[in-house]
């Protein structure tokens, strides 16, 4: 059993054609469930993308949804959270800091995460480099907030270790198109195994990147199971 907590549904602007590739991509790596955000919502128009994803989720049962929030459009975000979270097909919030021009340390990102905490669901937040430390600080400041550091800082994974150890409501997921040797093993050795999740960034990145990197870390059976699905099932109550 594998749950992918960082996935997307929809087209990308690069030279690729993967808009319909979710299930086939998951099948290649034995990924049973994926929590997806709509690319349209992440990149351009959050309400339109959330609406399209809601309709798509009605057509199959292996995907769950993130309500994408643009921190610069909090009124729209409130409406979408009210519209989609109660239905059960959306289980969290996705916030991309770059596409929305909302760094982790920005006031609008803090306001958005306050809204998420009030909604009571986890938020997947894009992190890169040292920004994961900012996420830990925000998480500490907002009672009840549970956040996933998307990419666990990518090349800033050592900052992610520090962040996870600073805030017990901060989770890490590892996806990145690069796979430096030993990155996953180093994080696993230094972080509470209850806060490690599996994510791929599919269908932008093929799951081979995260899957292979995690496999290379040689996790114990117990830790592998936690990373693969147990921690995600507990966090999202699925």
């Amino acid at each position, binding site marked *: *059993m*594998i749950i992918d907590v960082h996935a997307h549904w929809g087209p990308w602007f*690069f*030279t*690729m*054609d*993967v808009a319909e*590739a979710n299930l086939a*991509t998951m099948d*290649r*790596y*034995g990924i*049973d*469930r994926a929590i997806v955000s709509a690319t349209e919502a992440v990149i351009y128009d959050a309400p339109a993308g959330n609406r399209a994803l809601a309709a798509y989720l009605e057509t199959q*049962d292996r995907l*769950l949804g993130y309500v994408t929030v643009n921190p610069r459009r909090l009124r729209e975000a409130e409406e979408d959270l009210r519209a989609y979270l*109660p*239905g*059960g*097909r959306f*289980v969290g919030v996705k916030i991309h800091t770059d596409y929305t021009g909302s760094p982790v340390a920005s006031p609008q990102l803090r306001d958005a995460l306050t809204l998420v905490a009030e909604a009571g669901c986890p938020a997947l937040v894009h992190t890169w480099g040292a920004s994961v430390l900012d996420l830990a600080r925000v998480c500490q400041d907002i009672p009840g907030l549970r956040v996933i550091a998307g990419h666990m800082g990518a090349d800033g994974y050592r900052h992610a270790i520090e962040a996870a150890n600073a805030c017990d409501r901060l989770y890490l997921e590892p996806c990145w*198109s*690069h*796979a*430096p*040797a*030993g990155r996953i093993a180093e994080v696993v050795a230094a972080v509470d195994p209850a806060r490690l999740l599996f994510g791929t960034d*599919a*269908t*932008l*990145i*093929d799951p*081979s*990147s995260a*899957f*292979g*990197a*995690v*496999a*290379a870390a040689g*996790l114990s*059976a117990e830790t*592998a*199971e936690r*990373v*693969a*699905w147990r921690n995600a*099932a507990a966090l*999202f*109550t*699925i």
Partner: protein
Amino acid sequence: MMARMAIKDETAMPFDAWRRIGGLEVALDVDVLFGAYPDRDGPPGTPASVLRVLGAHRIRAAAVASLRAALFDVRSGNDELLALTAPAPTGLPASGLLEAAGSGTAVPGNGESGAAVVPVGTAIVPVGAVDLRDPIGAARELDRLASAGVRAVRLFPDEQGVEAGFPSVRHVARQAARLGLVVLTGGDVRRFWRPFAGLGASVVFLDTHFYHLGDFLVAAADEPGFHTSTRLLNSPDALELAAAEIGADRLLYGSRTPHYEPLVPLLRLATSGLAPVEIAAVAGGNAARLLSGETARKEQP
């Protein structure tokens, strides 16, 4: 209300990459380094340790370049590498050697880890390095390497702080093409295609990211000698798209062992939608052909 799903509590290891890789082996990895980066905490990159990693990933031969040559001293670094790949002197105990395989040559084990633990059958193909910060010296070194029978040279523009537009890169590109050397180059393919254009050069771009695949494809369409490593072509359809656009014979498995996880591009290739014959070609056939100086056999229309 939160969604509820049936959770299957399977006993199988969830991240069993080798089950998905199956019997795939890499006949020749085009991107391997001996040595360490002094500005990183990464692995030491001793020959024995690198070859152990390669063997553990069923990588039977590797095109290896020296970080000592790239980062510090070209001549001693290249000589060190060439000495490792020199034919075994008569009478040297067989247990102290790696067997030559394919286009590679014998490699003595070093005392650090013990040759006995290095997989027999792993071969290395020496790749020279030059320093783009010294184009005059680089040209001399290319001549020396070619005279020594080296067939490929590797460029490290990022590590050496050299941009694609610097005169040095064009100069080295011309000299390499003149000598018939295959160039393995790092750097952003959107910029580093240009100094090699119009030379009839054989080039493998080692850092092609799938974000930039479109740029590589349009450049490669005009340059039959342009190839790419698959290391960062890890979107769900990059390999398949590249094979459809310019042919799988332009794709070469590259791992950047020991600084990257070789399992990732291996897994991506094994699970790709390429035909088995194409997968075998990417896993080493193409690299062996390129480094032996053969040209790709194309079916005539």
